[in-house]
C-alpha cells in the first residue's frame, strides 16, 4: 500500500478515510445540502457560462431539483451498498461529477479514478467540491478523487475493496479493468462503446423554412462538434431518406450550413486535421467508400459517402468533424442494420412511430434513444436502461 501511494495523485480526499465510510440512506439530507452547495459554487464562477455541460449539471444538482427527484423514489429502508469505485472516461469532462452525484444520492462513499486528461471543467468542479466539503466536513469521507497511471496493482486493490465498480467505457478500458477481479459480493456496471447516427428525410428538409434549417445546423453542432463527437450519443453518420436527387440536394445545403456554424464556433486543433485524414483513408479502404472531393467543406467538415449501410458501419468512428453519409430509400433500410451497440438515433422529418415499428418488426437489439436533432440532454438518474438510485442502493426487507 505504501509503495502504491506514491503513484497516486489525490485531487480530493484519501483512500483510507473513504474505505471506512458508512453507507447512507438514499437522498440523505447532508448529501443534498452538499450538492446544492457545489451547485452554487460552480454557478458563482464568472466564466462558467462558457461550459454549457457544467452549467447544466450544476443546475441539475441544485436543491430544488434534487428534492423533486427524491419525491419520485421509494426511499424507505433503502441504503447505499458502501463503497463505489468509479473509472471515468477521458472524453466527457463532467462525467466524473455525474457518476459521483448518482452514487452519493444512492448512499455510497466513492473513490473516483479520473482520467489523466486535464479539462477546465474538471478543475472548476474539483475546486467547487473542495470549497463545499470544507463547509460539510462530515461528507469528506464520501468523496475521494484520484489519478494514477497504468498501475494494475492499484486497480486490483481498489477493485477488491469496493462493493461496486462503475466503468465508463470504451470497450478496451472495460476489458482491461476486468482483469482486476472484484470480491464475490461486489457488482459491476459498465458503459461500453456506443454508436449513434442521424437520419433525415431529404424532401422534408428541403421544404423546411430557412430558420428551421438554421436551427438544425446549430442543433447538429451541439450534438457533435461541441463534444468533438466523443459523446456516445454524438452522431457519426448521417443517413438521408428518400428520393436520391432530393437527398443529395438536401445534403449539400445541410453541410454548407453546418460549415458556417462550425466556422463560427469550433477551434480545430492542428492534430485533429491530420487524424481525420488518417481515419478517413483507413475507413475508406475498409468500407469501399468514396471520398468525394465535393463533400469537403473547408477543413472543419468532412463527409465520406459509404456505399451502403451495412451492419459493421459502427466500425466507422470519426472525430473532429468527420462524418459518414449514406442514402437510403426508407427507414427500414437503416433499422434492419441496427446492432446492439447502436445507441441514439437523432432525426428530422421522420415519423418516430415508423422508426419504433421498424425496430419492433426487425427485432434489432440496439437503439435506446430516439430524439430530434439538437435535443439537449438534461442529466437524469436513468441512463441506458439503468436507474442509478435503485441499482446502486440496497433495500432492507423488513417483516
Amino acid at each position, binding site marked *: 500500500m505504501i509503495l502504491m501511494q506514491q503513484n497516486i495523485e489525490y485531487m480530493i480526499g484519501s483512500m483510507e478515510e473513504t474505505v471506512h465510510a458508512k453507507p447512507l440512506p438514499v437522498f440523505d439530507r447532508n448529501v443534498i445540502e452538499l450538492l446544492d452547495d457545489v451547485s452554487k459554487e460552480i*454557478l458563482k464562477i464568472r466564466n462558467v457560462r462558457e461550459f*454549457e455541460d457544467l452549467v447544466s449539471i450544476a*443546475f441539475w444538482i441544485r*436543491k*430544488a431539483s434534487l428534492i*423533486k427527484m427524491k419525491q419520485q423514489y421509494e426511499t424507505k429502508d433503502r441504503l447505499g451498498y458502501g463503497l463505489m469505485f468509479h473509472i471515468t472516461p477521458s472524453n466527457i469532462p463532467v462525467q466524473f461529477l455525474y457518476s459521483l452525484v448518482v452514487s452519493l444520492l444512492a448512499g455510497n462513499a466513492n473513490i473516483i479514478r479520473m482520467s489523466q486528461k486535464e479539462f477546465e471543467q474538471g478543475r472548476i468542479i474539483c475546486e467547487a467540491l473542495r470549497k463545499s466539503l470544507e463547509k460539510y466536513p462530515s461528507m469528506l469521507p464520501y468523496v475521494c478523487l484520484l489519478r494514477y497511471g497504468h498501475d494494475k496493482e492499484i486497480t486490483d486493490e481498489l477493485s477488491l475493496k469496493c462493493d461496486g465498480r462503475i466503468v465508463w467505457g470504451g470497450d478496451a478500458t472495460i476489458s482491461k479493468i476486468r482483469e482486476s477481479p472484484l470480491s464475490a459480493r461486489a457488482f459491476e456496471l459498465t458503459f461500453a462503446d456506443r454508436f449513434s447516427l442521424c437520419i433525415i428525410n431529404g424532401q422534408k428538409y428541403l421544404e423546411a423554412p430557412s430558420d428551421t434549417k438554421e436551427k438544425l445546423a446549430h442543433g447538429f453542432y451541439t450534438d457533435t462538434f461541441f463534444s468533438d463527437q466523443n459523446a456516445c450519443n454524438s452522431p457519426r453518420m448521417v443517413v438521408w431518406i428518400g428520393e436520391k436527387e432530393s437527398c443529395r440536394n438536401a445534403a449539400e445545403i445541410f453541410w454548407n450550413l453546418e460549415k458556417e456554424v462550425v466556422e463560427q464556433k469550433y477551434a480545430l486543433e492542428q492534430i485533429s486535421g491530420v487524424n481525420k485524414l488518417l481515419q478517413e483513408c483507413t475507413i475508406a479502404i475498409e468500407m469501399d467508400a468514396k471520398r468525394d472531393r465535393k463533400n469537403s467543406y473547408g477543413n472543419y467538415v468532412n463527409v465520406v459517402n459509404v456505399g451502403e449501410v451495412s451492419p459493421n458501419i459502427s466500425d466507422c468512428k470519426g472525430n473532429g468533424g468527420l462524418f459518414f453519409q449514406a442514402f437510403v430509400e426508407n427507414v427500414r433500410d437503416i433499422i434492419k442494420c441496427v446492432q446492439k451497440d447502436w445507441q441514439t438515433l437523432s432525426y428530422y422529418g421522420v415519423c418516430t412511430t415508423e422508426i419504433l415499428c421498424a425496430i419492433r418488426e426487425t427485432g434489432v437489439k440496439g437503439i435506446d434513444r430516439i430524439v430530434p436533432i439538437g435535443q439537449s440532454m438534461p442529466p437524469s438518474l436513468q441512463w441506458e436502461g439503468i436507474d442509478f438510485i435503485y441499482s446502486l442502493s440496497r433495500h432492507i426487507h423488513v417483516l
Partner: protein
Amino acid sequence: MNNKEKYRKVFQETFEISGEQIDNAEYTVTAGWDSVGHMTLVAALEDEFDIMMDTDDIIDFSSFEVGKQILKKYDVLIDE
C-alpha cells in the same frame, strides 16, 4: 433590501444589465439570456428568495415582467 431590489439585483448580476434593460429583459432577446443564462437565472432566483420552482414555472419564466407573476405563486411579492 426589499424584494424588488433583490429581484433587480439578480437580473443585473446574471446578465450584466442595468436600468431599463432590466425592465425589458426577455428570454432569447436579452444578450446572455439563452438556455445557459436561463439556468443561471433560475438558480440565482431560487437562492435569493429561498424557493424551489416547479418545472412548468421554470419553462414559463420568459421575461422580467412575467417572472413577477410567477414568483407570486411562491409568496414572493415584487413590489412596484
